[in-house]
């Protein structure tokens, strides 16, 4: 079989490990402000790891697409260090604050511009809004078979076979390529990249193409279907922890009494 072509869609988000205290809400501007560095959304890293493993197993060319108003290529160059062959930034003022539909539409435009793909991988959900929509809409727009929540991906002569997570375990699902698969964290974390390798990639002379609305022929702002009307900090659940005191047995006795009062 000829080498397969994989496109991985990777978005950039504020580090999801940022503590609650570093997150605030501007209710007027309808913006969530996170005082944390940008990272690749964790599930998109899982998707890249899956792609690199396929490349190692059967040979593949991997293209990473990343869309945003402003995409940091220092963050994204990590994908090249991890094994991607090509990185394309999709940057435009018009790519700011897009909803799932308009994001998918812009990605679909870019993917058609790239052309000639066998497999598209996205993370199962972005680590900020957790909607789990972009990949599925993208698959639908491109008319591809879609498999959601992959725990493991393998290629078997022209088909992709996926262990898909279901509530009580997993099912093995097969689709003919080209296909789209959304990837879950069980696939495994993105491989470790040494600092030297990373630095070499960041300082490397290699220029990274950047495409805008004109290059992909899609005006995503016009396609928005969802509007945010209010943003707020999480409601105070009014929890005030009452600590049980005494010996372990006394603590246990007091807690058991609480349990029973709940019935």
């Amino acid at each position, binding site marked *: 079989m000829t080498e397969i072509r994989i496109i991985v869609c990777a978005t950039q988000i504020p580090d*999801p*490990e940022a*503590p*609650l205290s570093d997150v605030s*809400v501007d209710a007027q501007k309808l913006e*969530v402000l996170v005082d944390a560095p940008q990272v690749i959304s964790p*599930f998109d890293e899982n998707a890249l790891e899956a792609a690199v493993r396929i490349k190692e197993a059967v040979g593949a060319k991997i293209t990473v697409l990343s869309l945003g108003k402003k995409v940091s290529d220092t963050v994204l160059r990590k994908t090249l260090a991890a094994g991607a062959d090509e990185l394309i930034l999709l940057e435009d003022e018009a790519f700011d604050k897009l*909803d799932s*539909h308009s994001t998918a539409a812009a990605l679909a435009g870019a993917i058609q511009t790239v052309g000639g793909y066998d497999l598209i991988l996205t993370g*199962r959900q972005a680590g*900020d*809004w957790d*909607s*789990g*929509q972009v990949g*599925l809409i993208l698959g*639908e*727009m491109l008319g591809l078979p*879609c498999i*959601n*929540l992959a725990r493991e991906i393998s290629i078997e002569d022209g088909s992709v076979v996926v262990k898909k*997570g*279901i*509530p*009580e*375990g*997993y099912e*093995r*699902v*097969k*689709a*003919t390529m080209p296909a789209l698969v959304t990837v*879950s*964290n069980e696939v495994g974390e993105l491989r470790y990249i040494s600092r030297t390798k990373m630095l070499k990639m960041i300082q490397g002379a290699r220029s990274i193409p950047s495409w805008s609305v004109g290059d992909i022929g899609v005006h995503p702002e016009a396609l928005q*279907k*969802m*509007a*945010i*009307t*209010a*943003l*707020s*900090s*999480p*409601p105070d*659940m009014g*929890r005030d*922890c*009452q*600590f049980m005191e005494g010996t*372990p*047995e006394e*603590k*246990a006795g007091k*807690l*058991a*009494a*609480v*349990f029973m009062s*709940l019935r």
Partner: protein
Amino acid sequence: MAQGVWTIAEQRDGEIRKISYELVSEGRRLADALGQELTVVLLGSNIKDKAAAFGPYGANKVMVADDSRLEPYTTDAYVSVISQLVKANEPAVLLLGASVQGKDLAGRLAARLDVAMAQDCTVFAIEGGTLVATRPIYAGKAYAKVTFENSWPQMATARPKVMSVNEPDPSKSAEVMDAAFTLDDADLKTKVMDVVKDESGKVDLTEADKIVSGGRGMKGPENYYILEALADVIGASVGASRSAVDAGWRPHSDQVGQTGKVVSPNLYVACGISGAIQHLAGMSTSKVIVAINKDADAPIFQKADYGVVGDLFDVVPALTEEAKKYV
């Protein structure tokens, strides 16, 4: 004009899941606010006898799609059938559950229908005749209210166990009708080869009334019997943090959190779990939260109603013994 509120029922092996009643109850409230009818859509094989269950909770109609290819659930078949029904009947509001299956289905269905969808909502309201949905974002670090723009039906999933269930009124019944659809094998672009179930064949965590969860503090898979003993006595299911799942101690189906199950039981007991934001995202809407942790500064205590600072290997077995006294 789009008319009516629809909820998609969830069943597994012919058993109606609890989320289905939560959806009907919430659907009834929204239908009343709109002054419109509530229809439940039920899919499966030989499932029609279950349709009568929804009338007492407030459904006006139950539309049944019965076909051997609709059991077990597959994304492709469900999306094909429901999208046909929605296009033919044009409901104004379409609600599903934010269970693992519901999220998978809703994601694909919204894509097929080319509509916006609000995932994992905790509050719904009708304002100016349209749906307004509230949902946590950034793993619960903020909440957003969203509306739908020229997107019909207005589609959303509801977080399990958040919407209150109506008291069933046995005198009420719904009209049961057969759904008109075709299921073309060409629509089934993916093929399920086999299903592998995790060994734990217990209550689905999203439906559990009480949950006892263990994290990295459990130190190894062999120690979970301590939690299982407590769970047995108080009638709880056992969950886990992602650290415990990633370590291979517990199956993924036990994972609570942003990437696992989102649960809202009446009682959640976190044992040896630090309370990372991604774990909290999956359980902070529980009614009562209890934390057992040897580190008094563990963030989980800030989200707990009751806390025990101590070694779980002492506290949990003692708690099990104490709880037995009440049985």
